Protein backbone atom coordinates (compact mmCIF):
# COMPACT_ATOMS: atom_id res chain seq x y z
CA UNK A 1 0.00 0.00 0.00
CA UNK A 2 1.41 3.39 -1.04
CA UNK A 3 2.05 6.03 1.53
CA UNK A 4 1.30 9.60 0.45
CA UNK A 5 2.16 12.74 2.37
CA UNK A 6 0.73 16.14 1.48
CA UNK A 7 2.43 19.12 3.09
CA UNK A 8 -0.24 21.78 3.31
CA UNK A 9 -3.99 21.78 3.67
CA UNK A 10 -5.25 24.35 1.22
CA UNK A 11 -6.88 24.13 -2.19
CA UNK A 12 -3.94 22.36 -3.87
CA UNK A 13 -3.85 19.81 -1.05
CA UNK A 14 -7.54 19.03 -1.43
CA UNK A 15 -7.09 18.73 -5.19
CA UNK A 16 -4.23 16.33 -4.50
CA UNK A 17 -6.37 14.17 -2.20
CA UNK A 18 -9.10 14.00 -4.84
CA UNK A 19 -6.54 13.18 -7.53
CA UNK A 20 -4.98 10.38 -5.49
CA UNK A 21 -8.36 8.92 -4.63
CA UNK A 22 -9.46 9.03 -8.26
CA UNK A 23 -6.76 6.42 -8.91
CA UNK A 24 -5.98 4.77 -5.60
CA UNK A 25 -8.79 4.14 -3.10
CA UNK A 26 -6.59 2.50 -0.51
CA UNK A 27 -3.20 4.18 -0.09
CA UNK A 28 -2.51 5.97 3.17
CA UNK A 29 -2.75 9.76 2.91
CA UNK A 30 -1.38 12.06 5.59
CA UNK A 31 -2.15 15.77 5.32
CA UNK A 32 -0.09 18.25 7.31
CA UNK A 33 -1.95 21.42 8.24
CA UNK A 34 -0.08 24.40 9.63
CA UNK A 35 -3.37 26.09 10.48
CA UNK A 36 -5.77 24.65 12.98
CA UNK A 37 -8.68 24.49 10.51
CA UNK A 38 -10.00 22.05 7.94
CA UNK A 39 -9.36 23.38 4.41
CA UNK A 40 -11.30 26.59 3.89
CA UNK A 41 -11.72 29.03 1.05
CA UNK A 42 -8.95 31.56 1.56
CA UNK A 43 -10.25 34.16 -0.91
CA UNK A 44 -13.43 34.35 1.14
CA UNK A 45 -11.82 35.97 4.16
CA UNK A 46 -12.83 39.43 2.94
CA UNK A 47 -16.46 38.26 2.69
CA UNK A 48 -16.12 37.04 6.26
CA UNK A 49 -15.22 40.60 7.35
CA UNK A 50 -18.52 41.88 5.99
CA UNK A 51 -20.53 38.92 7.32
CA UNK A 52 -21.35 37.59 3.86
CA UNK A 53 -20.06 34.21 4.96
CA UNK A 54 -18.90 32.50 8.13
CA UNK A 55 -16.20 29.96 8.99
CA UNK A 56 -18.62 27.07 8.62
CA UNK A 57 -19.81 28.09 5.17
CA UNK A 58 -16.21 28.82 4.20
CA UNK A 59 -15.23 25.16 4.46
CA UNK A 60 -13.91 24.11 1.05
CA UNK A 61 -15.38 20.62 1.31
CA UNK A 62 -17.95 18.78 3.41
CA UNK A 63 -17.09 18.36 7.09
CA UNK A 64 -16.66 14.64 6.52
CA UNK A 65 -14.22 15.13 3.63
CA UNK A 66 -11.09 13.75 5.30
CA UNK A 67 -12.93 10.84 6.80
CA UNK A 68 -14.70 10.07 3.53
CA UNK A 69 -11.35 10.08 1.73
CA UNK A 70 -9.49 8.12 4.35
CA UNK A 71 -7.05 10.91 5.19
CA UNK A 72 -5.17 11.43 8.39
CA UNK A 73 -4.82 15.17 9.11
CA UNK A 74 -2.22 16.49 11.51
CA UNK A 75 -3.16 20.01 12.59
CA UNK A 76 -0.79 22.70 13.88
CA UNK A 77 2.13 20.93 12.24
CA UNK A 78 4.82 22.28 9.94
CA UNK A 79 7.45 20.32 8.08
CA UNK A 80 11.00 21.52 8.62
CA UNK A 81 13.07 19.33 6.32
CA UNK A 82 12.66 16.98 3.39
CA UNK A 83 15.15 14.23 2.60
CA UNK A 84 14.49 12.80 -0.86
CA UNK A 85 17.25 10.20 -0.41
CA UNK A 86 15.68 8.46 2.58
CA UNK A 87 12.17 9.66 1.62
CA UNK A 88 11.50 11.16 5.00
CA UNK A 89 10.03 14.40 6.19
CA UNK A 90 10.97 16.00 9.49
CA UNK A 91 8.25 17.86 11.40
CA UNK A 92 8.59 20.79 13.78
CA UNK A 93 7.68 18.43 16.59
CA UNK A 94 10.87 16.52 15.82
CA UNK A 95 8.95 13.51 14.53
CA UNK A 96 9.67 12.12 11.10
CA UNK A 97 7.29 10.74 8.48
CA UNK A 98 8.26 8.44 5.66
CA UNK A 99 6.58 8.57 2.27
CA UNK A 100 6.49 6.92 -1.10
CA UNK A 101 5.25 10.06 -2.85
CA UNK A 102 5.00 13.52 -1.38
CA UNK A 103 3.28 16.69 -2.54
CA UNK A 104 4.53 20.04 -1.30
CA UNK A 105 1.55 22.39 -1.25
CA UNK A 106 2.83 24.90 1.26
CA UNK A 107 1.38 28.03 -0.32
CA UNK A 108 2.85 31.44 0.30
CA UNK A 109 3.50 33.87 3.12
CA UNK A 110 2.97 37.62 3.29
CA UNK A 111 5.95 39.65 2.24
CA UNK A 112 6.43 42.86 4.21
CA UNK A 113 9.08 45.28 2.93
CA UNK A 114 11.21 46.93 5.59
CA UNK A 115 9.66 50.11 7.02
CA UNK A 116 11.27 52.05 9.83
CA UNK A 117 9.61 51.42 13.17
CA UNK A 118 7.06 48.98 11.76
CA UNK A 119 7.80 46.54 14.58
CA UNK A 120 6.54 49.09 17.10
CA UNK A 121 3.12 49.49 15.49
CA UNK A 122 0.67 47.83 17.84
CA UNK A 123 -2.44 47.09 15.79
CA UNK A 124 -0.70 45.55 12.79
CA UNK A 125 -2.28 42.80 10.69
CA UNK A 126 -1.59 40.65 7.67
CA UNK A 127 -4.51 39.52 5.53
CA UNK A 128 -3.98 36.03 4.24
CA UNK A 129 -5.45 33.51 6.65
CA UNK A 130 -8.74 33.04 8.42
CA UNK A 131 -7.02 33.74 11.72
CA UNK A 132 -5.70 37.03 10.29
CA UNK A 133 -9.25 37.96 9.29
CA UNK A 134 -10.69 36.96 12.66
CA UNK A 135 -8.13 39.07 14.52
CA UNK A 136 -8.69 42.03 12.21
CA UNK A 137 -12.47 41.82 12.46
CA UNK A 138 -12.23 41.81 16.23
CA UNK A 139 -9.96 44.86 16.30
CA UNK A 140 -11.78 47.14 13.85
CA UNK A 141 -14.53 49.37 15.24
CA UNK A 142 -16.84 51.73 13.33
CA UNK A 143 -14.67 54.62 14.48
CA UNK A 144 -11.38 52.96 13.50
CA UNK A 145 -9.08 54.65 11.04
CA UNK A 146 -7.56 51.94 8.86
CA UNK A 147 -4.43 52.23 6.73
CA UNK A 148 -3.91 49.45 4.21
CA UNK A 149 -0.52 49.13 2.56
CA UNK A 150 -1.06 47.60 -0.86
CA UNK A 151 -3.73 48.39 -3.48
CA UNK A 152 -3.58 44.98 -5.11
CA UNK A 153 -6.19 42.20 -5.09
CA UNK A 154 -5.68 41.35 -1.42
CA UNK A 155 -5.46 44.91 -0.12
CA UNK A 156 -8.54 46.06 -1.98
CA UNK A 157 -10.66 43.02 -1.07
CA UNK A 158 -9.66 43.70 2.53
CA UNK A 159 -10.71 47.34 2.11
CA UNK A 160 -14.07 46.31 0.68
CA UNK A 161 -14.67 43.94 3.56
CA UNK A 162 -13.69 46.49 6.20
CA UNK A 163 -15.89 49.13 4.58
CA UNK A 164 -18.84 47.27 6.11
CA UNK A 165 -17.43 48.19 9.51
CA UNK A 166 -15.78 51.57 9.07
CA UNK A 167 -15.79 54.47 6.62
CA UNK A 168 -12.27 55.58 7.44
CA UNK A 169 -10.07 53.56 5.12
CA UNK A 170 -6.97 54.76 3.30
CA UNK A 171 -5.06 52.56 0.89
CA UNK A 172 -1.52 53.34 -0.21
CA UNK A 173 0.63 51.72 -2.86
CA UNK A 174 4.03 52.26 -4.39
CA UNK A 175 2.53 51.68 -7.84
CA UNK A 176 0.90 54.67 -9.51
CA UNK A 177 -2.40 52.84 -9.96
CA UNK A 178 -4.59 50.30 -8.19
CA UNK A 179 -4.63 46.59 -9.13
CA UNK A 180 -1.37 47.01 -11.03
CA UNK A 181 -0.96 43.25 -11.42
CA UNK A 182 -4.08 42.93 -13.57
CA UNK A 183 -4.96 46.38 -14.96
CA UNK A 184 -3.21 49.15 -16.83
CA UNK A 185 -3.36 52.72 -15.52
CA UNK A 186 -6.37 53.84 -17.58
CA UNK A 187 -8.60 50.95 -16.56
CA UNK A 188 -7.38 51.21 -12.99
CA UNK A 189 -8.50 54.86 -12.91
CA UNK A 190 -12.02 53.74 -13.88
CA UNK A 191 -12.05 51.20 -11.04
CA UNK A 192 -10.49 53.63 -8.56
CA UNK A 193 -13.26 56.14 -9.22
CA UNK A 194 -15.79 53.47 -8.27
CA UNK A 195 -13.83 52.60 -5.13
CA UNK A 196 -13.65 56.28 -4.15
CA UNK A 197 -17.39 56.60 -4.66
CA UNK A 198 -17.61 53.92 -1.98
CA UNK A 199 -15.57 56.04 0.44
CA UNK A 200 -12.13 54.45 0.03
CA UNK A 201 -9.29 56.97 0.03
CA UNK A 202 -6.06 56.46 -1.88
CA UNK A 203 -2.52 57.67 -1.85
CA UNK A 204 -0.67 56.14 -4.77
CA UNK A 205 2.89 56.26 -6.04
CA UNK A 206 3.63 56.69 -2.37
CA UNK A 207 4.92 54.51 0.43
CA UNK A 208 5.52 54.66 4.13
CA UNK A 209 8.93 56.10 4.99
CA UNK A 210 8.53 55.45 8.71
CA UNK A 211 6.09 55.07 11.53
CA UNK A 212 5.86 57.48 14.44
CA UNK A 213 3.60 55.66 16.86
CA UNK A 214 0.26 55.34 15.11
CA UNK A 215 1.13 57.77 12.35
CA UNK A 216 2.59 56.81 9.01
CA UNK A 217 5.04 59.35 7.63
CA UNK A 218 4.81 58.92 3.89
CA UNK A 219 7.57 59.36 1.30
CA UNK A 220 5.88 62.49 -0.02
CA UNK A 221 5.82 64.02 3.47
CA UNK A 222 2.13 63.41 4.24
CA UNK A 223 1.26 62.12 7.67
CA UNK A 224 -1.52 59.54 7.95
CA UNK A 225 -2.75 58.79 11.46
CA UNK A 226 -4.40 55.39 11.89
CA UNK A 227 -5.69 52.96 14.51
CA UNK A 228 -5.32 49.78 12.46
CA UNK A 229 -2.58 48.91 10.00
CA UNK A 230 -2.95 46.16 7.39
CA UNK A 231 0.06 45.11 5.33
CA UNK A 232 -0.99 43.55 2.03
CA UNK A 233 1.97 44.22 -0.21
CA UNK A 234 2.42 40.77 -1.64
CA UNK A 235 3.31 37.20 -0.94
CA UNK A 236 6.30 34.92 -1.38
CA UNK A 237 6.23 31.24 -2.15
CA UNK A 238 6.99 28.90 0.74
CA UNK A 239 9.62 26.95 -1.13
CA UNK A 240 12.00 26.13 1.72
CA UNK A 241 11.40 22.38 1.93
CA UNK A 242 12.21 21.78 -1.74
CA UNK A 243 14.91 24.42 -2.08
CA UNK A 244 16.79 23.25 1.02
CA UNK A 245 16.68 19.69 -0.28
CA UNK A 246 18.38 20.85 -3.47
CA UNK A 247 15.27 21.01 -5.68
CA UNK A 248 15.14 23.42 -8.59
CA UNK A 249 13.49 26.76 -7.87
CA UNK A 250 13.12 30.04 -9.74
CA UNK A 251 10.93 32.53 -7.95
CA UNK A 252 9.01 29.55 -6.62
CA UNK A 253 9.29 25.77 -6.85
CA UNK A 254 9.86 24.62 -10.42
CA UNK A 255 7.42 21.96 -11.59
CA UNK A 256 6.74 20.28 -14.93
CA UNK A 257 3.34 19.59 -16.49
CA UNK A 258 2.89 16.56 -14.25
CA UNK A 259 3.67 18.69 -11.18
CA UNK A 260 6.92 16.85 -10.56
CA UNK A 261 9.73 18.85 -8.98
CA UNK A 262 13.35 18.09 -9.87
CA UNK A 263 13.50 15.76 -6.85
CA UNK A 264 12.41 12.18 -7.32
CA UNK A 265 8.92 11.36 -6.03
CA UNK A 266 8.49 14.93 -4.82
CA UNK A 267 5.60 16.84 -6.38
CA UNK A 268 4.50 20.40 -5.74
CA UNK A 269 1.28 22.31 -6.40
CA UNK A 270 -0.40 25.63 -5.74
CA UNK A 271 0.94 29.02 -4.75
CA UNK A 272 4.40 27.67 -3.87
CA UNK A 273 5.07 26.74 -7.52
CA UNK A 274 5.81 28.48 -10.79
CA UNK A 275 4.85 27.23 -14.22
CA UNK A 276 4.47 28.32 -17.84
CA UNK A 277 1.79 30.83 -18.76
CA UNK A 278 0.66 29.60 -22.20
CA UNK A 279 -0.54 33.08 -23.21
CA UNK A 280 3.03 34.38 -23.38
CA UNK A 281 5.18 31.29 -22.71
CA UNK A 282 6.82 32.90 -19.69
CA UNK A 283 7.38 31.10 -16.41
CA UNK A 284 5.33 32.69 -13.65
CA UNK A 285 3.91 32.20 -10.22
CA UNK A 286 0.19 32.02 -10.99
CA UNK A 287 -1.13 31.98 -7.47
CA UNK A 288 -4.81 31.50 -8.24
CA UNK A 289 -7.26 29.17 -6.61
CA UNK A 290 -8.43 27.40 -9.80
CA UNK A 291 -4.81 26.77 -10.82
CA UNK A 292 -4.01 25.49 -7.34
CA UNK A 293 -6.81 22.95 -7.56
CA UNK A 294 -5.87 21.78 -11.05
CA UNK A 295 -2.22 21.46 -10.07
CA UNK A 296 -3.03 19.57 -6.90
CA UNK A 297 -5.41 17.26 -8.73
CA UNK A 298 -2.83 16.63 -11.46
CA UNK A 299 -0.13 15.92 -8.87
CA UNK A 300 -2.43 13.52 -7.04
CA UNK A 301 -3.27 11.49 -10.13
CA UNK A 302 0.39 11.17 -11.09
CA UNK A 303 1.44 10.34 -7.53
CA UNK A 304 -1.01 7.46 -7.51
CA UNK A 305 0.32 6.06 -10.77
CA UNK A 306 -2.19 7.59 -13.16
CA UNK A 307 -1.30 9.95 -15.97
CA UNK A 308 -2.36 13.56 -16.14
CA UNK A 309 -0.84 16.81 -17.31
CA UNK A 310 -1.91 20.36 -16.57
CA UNK A 311 -0.40 22.20 -19.47
CA UNK A 312 -2.65 25.14 -20.15
CA UNK A 313 -2.33 27.41 -17.16
CA UNK A 314 -3.06 31.07 -17.67
CA UNK A 315 -3.27 33.86 -15.16
CA UNK A 316 -6.94 34.74 -14.70
CA UNK A 317 -8.97 36.66 -12.18
CA UNK A 318 -12.61 37.26 -11.52
CA UNK A 319 -13.07 39.88 -8.88
CA UNK A 320 -15.60 42.48 -7.90
CA UNK A 321 -15.64 45.51 -5.64
CA UNK A 322 -18.85 47.10 -4.38
CA UNK A 323 -20.83 45.55 -7.22
CA UNK A 324 -18.38 46.34 -10.03
CA UNK A 325 -17.11 43.11 -11.54
CA UNK A 326 -14.02 42.59 -13.60
CA UNK A 327 -12.42 39.61 -15.25
CA UNK A 328 -8.95 39.41 -16.69
CA UNK A 329 -7.08 36.56 -18.33
CA UNK A 330 -3.85 35.97 -20.18
CA UNK A 331 -1.48 38.75 -21.19
CA UNK A 332 -1.88 42.40 -22.00
CA UNK A 333 0.39 42.37 -25.04
CA UNK A 334 0.06 42.27 -28.79
CA UNK A 335 -2.58 44.07 -30.80
CA UNK A 336 -5.33 45.62 -28.65
CA UNK A 337 -8.98 46.16 -29.49
CA UNK A 338 -11.13 48.18 -27.15
CA UNK A 339 -14.79 48.85 -26.54
CA UNK A 340 -15.55 51.51 -23.96
CA UNK A 341 -19.08 52.24 -22.80
CA UNK A 342 -20.32 54.42 -19.95
CA UNK A 343 -20.30 51.56 -17.42
CA UNK A 344 -17.95 49.09 -19.00
CA UNK A 345 -14.56 48.57 -20.55
CA UNK A 346 -13.57 45.62 -22.73
CA UNK A 347 -10.09 45.04 -24.06
CA UNK A 348 -8.88 42.19 -26.21
CA UNK A 349 -5.27 41.38 -26.97
CA UNK A 350 -4.41 39.36 -30.06
CA UNK A 351 -1.25 37.91 -31.51
CA UNK A 352 -0.84 35.75 -34.63
CA UNK A 353 -4.59 35.57 -35.11
CA UNK A 354 -5.17 34.27 -31.60
CA UNK A 355 -6.63 35.80 -28.48
CA UNK A 356 -3.88 36.02 -25.86
CA UNK A 357 -5.57 38.15 -23.24
CA UNK A 358 -8.64 40.15 -22.23
CA UNK A 359 -9.82 42.63 -19.66
CA UNK A 360 -13.55 43.01 -18.99
CA UNK A 361 -14.82 45.56 -16.51
CA UNK A 362 -18.50 46.04 -15.80
CA UNK A 363 -19.83 43.61 -18.43
CA UNK A 364 -18.57 40.11 -17.79
CA UNK A 365 -21.41 38.02 -19.18
CA UNK A 366 -20.34 34.64 -20.60
CA UNK A 367 -16.67 35.59 -20.29
CA UNK A 368 -15.81 31.89 -20.14
CA UNK A 369 -16.27 31.73 -23.91
CA UNK A 370 -13.30 34.07 -24.26
CA UNK A 371 -11.31 32.13 -21.66
CA UNK A 372 -11.92 28.93 -23.60
CA UNK A 373 -10.86 30.52 -26.90
CA UNK A 374 -7.73 31.82 -25.21
CA UNK A 375 -6.84 28.69 -23.32
CA UNK A 376 -7.33 26.36 -26.26
CA UNK A 377 -5.71 28.82 -28.66
CA UNK A 378 -8.65 28.65 -31.06
CA UNK A 379 -7.83 30.83 -34.11
CA UNK A 380 -10.16 33.85 -34.18
CA UNK A 381 -10.74 33.34 -37.92
CA UNK A 382 -12.28 29.93 -37.28
CA UNK A 383 -15.01 31.39 -35.06
CA UNK A 384 -18.49 32.18 -36.36
CA UNK A 385 -18.22 35.67 -35.00
CA UNK A 386 -16.00 37.73 -32.78
CA UNK A 387 -17.85 40.94 -32.12
CA UNK A 388 -16.41 42.74 -29.13
CA UNK A 389 -19.50 44.91 -28.78
CA UNK A 390 -21.68 41.84 -28.14
CA UNK A 391 -21.52 39.42 -25.23
CA UNK A 392 -19.96 36.16 -26.36
CA UNK A 393 -22.05 32.98 -26.35
CA UNK A 394 -22.26 29.53 -27.91
CA UNK A 395 -23.01 31.43 -31.13
CA UNK A 396 -19.43 32.69 -31.08
CA UNK A 397 -18.01 29.24 -31.85
CA UNK A 398 -18.06 27.47 -35.20
CA UNK A 399 -20.95 25.15 -36.01
CA UNK A 400 -19.03 21.93 -35.42
CA UNK A 401 -18.01 22.84 -31.87
CA UNK A 402 -21.46 24.19 -31.10
CA UNK A 403 -23.26 21.07 -32.30
CA UNK A 404 -20.88 18.77 -30.51
CA UNK A 405 -21.40 20.71 -27.29
CA UNK A 406 -25.18 20.82 -27.50
CA UNK A 407 -25.79 17.35 -28.89
CA UNK A 408 -23.36 15.14 -26.97
CA UNK A 409 -21.95 14.60 -23.51
CA UNK A 410 -18.98 16.90 -23.02
CA UNK A 411 -16.00 16.53 -20.79
Amino acid at each position, binding site marked *: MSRYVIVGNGTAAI*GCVEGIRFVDPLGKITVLSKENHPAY*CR*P*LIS*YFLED*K*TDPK*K*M*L*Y*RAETFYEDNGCEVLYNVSATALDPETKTLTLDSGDTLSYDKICVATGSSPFVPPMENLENVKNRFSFLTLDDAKALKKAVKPSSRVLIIGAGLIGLKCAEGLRAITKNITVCDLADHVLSSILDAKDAAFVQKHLEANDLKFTLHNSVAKFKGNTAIMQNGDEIPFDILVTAVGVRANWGLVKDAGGACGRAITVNEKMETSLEDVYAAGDCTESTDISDSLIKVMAL*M*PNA*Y*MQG*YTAGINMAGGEKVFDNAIP*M*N*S*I*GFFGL*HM*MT*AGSRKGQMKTDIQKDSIKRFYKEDGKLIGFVLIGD*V*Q*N*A*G*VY*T*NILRNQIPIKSL*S*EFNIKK*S*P*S*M*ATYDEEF*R*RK*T*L*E*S*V*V*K
Partner: protein
Amino acid sequence: MKRVFVKEEWCLGCHLCEYNCAYANSGLSSMVKALQGKPIFPRIHVNGNDSVTFAVSCRHCTDPLCVKSCISGALHRENGVVCIDKNKCVGCLTCMLVCPYGALVQDETGTVTKCELCTKNSCGTPACVAGCPNNAIVFEERCEE
Protein backbone atom coordinates in the same frame (compact mmCIF):
# COMPACT_ATOMS: atom_id res chain seq x y z
CA MET B 1 -27.35 9.83 -16.61
CA LYS B 2 -29.92 11.82 -18.55
CA ARG B 3 -28.94 15.25 -19.78
CA VAL B 4 -30.56 18.05 -21.77
CA PHE B 5 -29.63 18.13 -25.46
CA VAL B 6 -30.61 20.59 -28.16
CA LYS B 7 -31.49 20.12 -31.81
CA GLU B 8 -30.80 23.53 -33.25
CA GLU B 9 -32.70 23.00 -36.51
CA TRP B 10 -35.90 22.48 -34.50
CA CYS B 11 -35.50 25.57 -32.32
CA LEU B 12 -38.02 28.30 -33.13
CA GLY B 13 -36.29 30.89 -30.98
CA CYS B 14 -39.52 31.42 -29.04
CA HIS B 15 -37.79 31.73 -25.62
CA LEU B 16 -40.54 29.67 -23.93
CA CYS B 17 -37.85 27.51 -22.33
CA GLU B 18 -36.53 30.58 -20.52
CA TYR B 19 -39.96 31.40 -19.09
CA ASN B 20 -40.70 27.81 -18.14
CA CYS B 21 -37.34 27.60 -16.41
CA ALA B 22 -37.81 30.79 -14.43
CA TYR B 23 -41.32 29.69 -13.44
CA ALA B 24 -40.23 26.18 -12.43
CA ASN B 25 -37.53 27.59 -10.20
CA SER B 26 -39.62 30.38 -8.69
CA GLY B 27 -41.28 28.12 -6.14
CA LEU B 28 -44.59 29.85 -6.93
CA SER B 29 -47.74 28.11 -8.12
CA SER B 30 -48.87 30.95 -10.35
CA MET B 31 -46.90 31.63 -13.52
CA VAL B 32 -48.25 35.17 -13.58
CA LYS B 33 -47.03 35.87 -10.07
CA ALA B 34 -43.69 34.28 -10.86
CA LEU B 35 -42.96 36.19 -14.03
CA GLN B 36 -45.13 39.25 -14.57
CA GLY B 37 -43.34 42.56 -14.40
CA LYS B 38 -40.19 41.12 -12.88
CA PRO B 39 -36.69 40.66 -14.18
CA ILE B 40 -36.26 36.90 -14.61
CA PHE B 41 -33.12 34.82 -14.25
CA PRO B 42 -33.64 31.62 -16.25
CA ARG B 43 -30.96 28.96 -16.28
CA ILE B 44 -31.37 28.31 -19.99
CA HIS B 45 -30.84 30.94 -22.67
CA VAL B 46 -31.67 31.13 -26.33
CA ASN B 47 -28.55 32.15 -28.22
CA GLY B 48 -28.02 32.46 -31.91
CA ASN B 49 -27.56 34.73 -34.87
CA ASP B 50 -29.52 35.74 -37.96
CA SER B 51 -29.71 32.21 -39.32
CA VAL B 52 -29.96 29.89 -36.32
CA THR B 53 -31.16 29.79 -32.70
CA PHE B 54 -30.58 27.25 -29.95
CA ALA B 55 -31.09 26.96 -26.21
CA VAL B 56 -28.02 26.76 -23.99
CA SER B 57 -27.99 25.41 -20.46
CA CYS B 58 -25.41 23.64 -18.30
CA ARG B 59 -23.90 20.65 -20.10
CA HIS B 60 -23.26 18.84 -16.81
CA CYS B 61 -19.73 18.10 -17.97
CA THR B 62 -18.17 14.87 -16.81
CA ASP B 63 -15.11 16.81 -15.60
CA PRO B 64 -16.56 20.25 -14.87
CA LEU B 65 -14.19 23.21 -14.93
CA CYS B 66 -16.62 25.32 -12.89
CA VAL B 67 -16.53 22.87 -9.98
CA LYS B 68 -12.74 22.72 -10.06
CA SER B 69 -12.47 26.49 -10.20
CA CYS B 70 -15.10 27.43 -7.63
CA ILE B 71 -13.38 29.42 -4.89
CA SER B 72 -16.14 29.00 -2.33
CA GLY B 73 -16.81 25.26 -2.58
CA ALA B 74 -20.39 26.10 -3.66
CA LEU B 75 -20.32 24.23 -6.98
CA HIS B 76 -20.27 20.47 -6.65
CA ARG B 77 -21.61 17.33 -8.31
CA GLU B 78 -24.53 15.26 -7.03
CA ASN B 79 -24.82 11.97 -8.93
CA GLY B 80 -23.37 13.63 -12.00
CA VAL B 81 -25.55 16.74 -11.80
CA VAL B 82 -23.54 19.93 -11.33
CA CYS B 83 -25.27 21.75 -8.47
CA ILE B 84 -24.70 24.99 -6.61
CA ASP B 85 -25.05 25.59 -2.89
CA LYS B 86 -26.37 29.17 -3.00
CA ASN B 87 -25.71 29.47 0.69
CA LYS B 88 -21.96 29.14 0.09
CA CYS B 89 -21.69 31.15 -3.12
CA VAL B 90 -20.37 34.70 -2.63
CA GLY B 91 -20.85 35.82 -6.24
CA CYS B 92 -17.17 36.03 -7.22
CA LEU B 93 -18.19 34.80 -10.69
CA THR B 94 -15.05 32.71 -11.22
CA CYS B 95 -17.31 29.97 -12.65
CA MET B 96 -18.54 32.41 -15.29
CA LEU B 97 -14.92 33.16 -16.15
CA VAL B 98 -14.17 29.49 -16.83
CA CYS B 99 -17.38 27.97 -18.25
CA PRO B 100 -16.77 27.59 -22.01
CA TYR B 101 -20.50 27.56 -22.73
CA GLY B 102 -21.85 30.58 -20.89
CA ALA B 103 -24.09 28.35 -18.80
CA LEU B 104 -24.02 30.25 -15.50
CA VAL B 105 -25.63 33.57 -14.63
CA GLN B 106 -25.73 35.89 -11.68
CA ASP B 107 -29.24 36.35 -10.31
CA GLU B 108 -30.91 39.09 -8.28
CA THR B 109 -29.25 37.91 -5.07
CA GLY B 110 -25.77 38.49 -6.51
CA THR B 111 -25.00 34.80 -6.34
CA VAL B 112 -24.75 32.46 -9.29
CA THR B 113 -27.58 30.32 -10.57
CA LYS B 114 -27.47 27.42 -13.00
CA CYS B 115 -29.42 24.49 -14.42
CA GLU B 116 -29.73 21.60 -11.99
CA LEU B 117 -31.96 19.60 -14.36
CA CYS B 118 -34.98 20.53 -12.18
CA THR B 119 -33.75 18.08 -9.52
CA LYS B 120 -34.11 20.74 -6.83
CA ASN B 121 -37.59 22.02 -7.69
CA SER B 122 -41.01 20.41 -7.72
CA CYS B 123 -40.84 19.55 -11.45
CA GLY B 124 -38.39 16.71 -10.99
CA THR B 125 -37.75 16.62 -14.72
CA PRO B 126 -36.59 19.57 -16.86
CA ALA B 127 -39.34 22.13 -17.39
CA CYS B 128 -37.61 23.53 -20.48
CA VAL B 129 -37.95 20.15 -22.17
CA ALA B 130 -41.56 19.60 -21.14
CA GLY B 131 -42.59 23.02 -22.41
CA CYS B 132 -40.68 23.14 -25.69
CA PRO B 133 -43.38 23.41 -28.40
CA ASN B 134 -41.22 21.93 -31.14
CA ASN B 135 -39.28 19.23 -29.25
CA ALA B 136 -36.04 21.08 -29.90
CA ILE B 137 -34.90 20.32 -26.36
CA VAL B 138 -34.76 16.72 -25.21
CA PHE B 139 -33.87 14.98 -21.95
CA GLU B 140 -32.16 11.68 -22.54
CA GLU B 141 -29.23 9.41 -21.91
CA ARG B 142 -26.39 9.63 -24.41
CA CYS B 143 -23.11 7.81 -24.16
CA GLU B 144 -20.24 9.32 -22.22
CA GLU B 145 -16.94 9.02 -24.03
